């Protein structure tokens, strides 16, 4: 079964890298949607259903934690798992994200294996097919 994924990051390059990483990780993705701020992500979610959100924390306008809070207050959108992907791994930041309702937290820099591991943990094995090759040492 394929899933729809929303990538939220103010860096176009980072969105492209995460997208490729998810693809080579073997996750069966139907549609990839992209947004560069939390505000844009919410607009996108008005018209499109997604099964997973991968979001940066540091973004202009509405940051990732504000987006997460808004999603968790919404009766329909609160069930979508949100994985925060960010540069900061400070305990207080990680704990805050989980307190607000994040399903996972990944720190940049990341490897394809780390992304896959986290997504399998959240989505379950049934959504992950075998990757095309060995992920070890694989580039994006």
């Amino acid at each position, binding site marked *: 079964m394929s899933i729809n994924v929303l990538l939220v990051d103010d860096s*176009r*390059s980072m969105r492209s890298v995460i997208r490729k990483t998810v693809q080579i990780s073997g996750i069966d993705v139907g549609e990839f949607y992209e947004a560069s701020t939390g505000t844009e992500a919410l607009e996108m979610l008005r018209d499109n259903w997604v099964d997973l959100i991968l979001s940066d924390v540091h*973004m202009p306008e509405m940051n990732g934690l504000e987006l997460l809070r808004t999603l968790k207050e919404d009766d329909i959108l609160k069930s979508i798992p949100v994985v925060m992907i960010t540069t900061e791994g400070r305990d207080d930041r990680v704990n805050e994200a989980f307190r607000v309702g994040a399903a996972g937290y990944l720190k940049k*820099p990341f490897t394809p294996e780390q992304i896959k591991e986290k997504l399998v943990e959240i989505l379950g094995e049934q959504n992950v097919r075998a990757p095309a090759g060995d992920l070890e040492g694989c580039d994006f």
Partner: protein
Amino acid sequence: MSGRLQEILKDVTSDILETMFFVVPEPWSSQDTQGEDLRFDIRGVVSLGGSTPLWLNLFVPMAMARRLAGNFLGLEESRPDADSLLDTSREMLNMIAGNLVTELEAESGLELGLPEVSFFQRTVPRAYMGEHKHVFILVEDEYLMLSFTREGS
């Protein structure tokens, strides 16, 4: 810049360059501090907050910026455009600063801001490499430079 801060900055930058940009920083010697001035084409800056506001600066030469953007984006033949060069450099600075703040957690009070980057095109004297105010990372015959500035300095 204290020796410990220099080491942390070198370590987090090297880890990011290897993991996300697929280049391996090399050691450089004191002989490298002599010769022509070093030219940089992209400059980035990010606020780290703190009681006395502190900024982290990144300086990248054009050829290195192209190589890093190409590797990051997985471009095999095509050259990255100007937007990609700036966006990739900004993301690199974001990762360096975020990981630095994480490493300095205990003594922190630091608050990561949003990085800004622009084309810069200036040279700095090679003698800077012998000082402790800057960190230089050698990648395939070119140097990337990092430095801190404090409000009022």
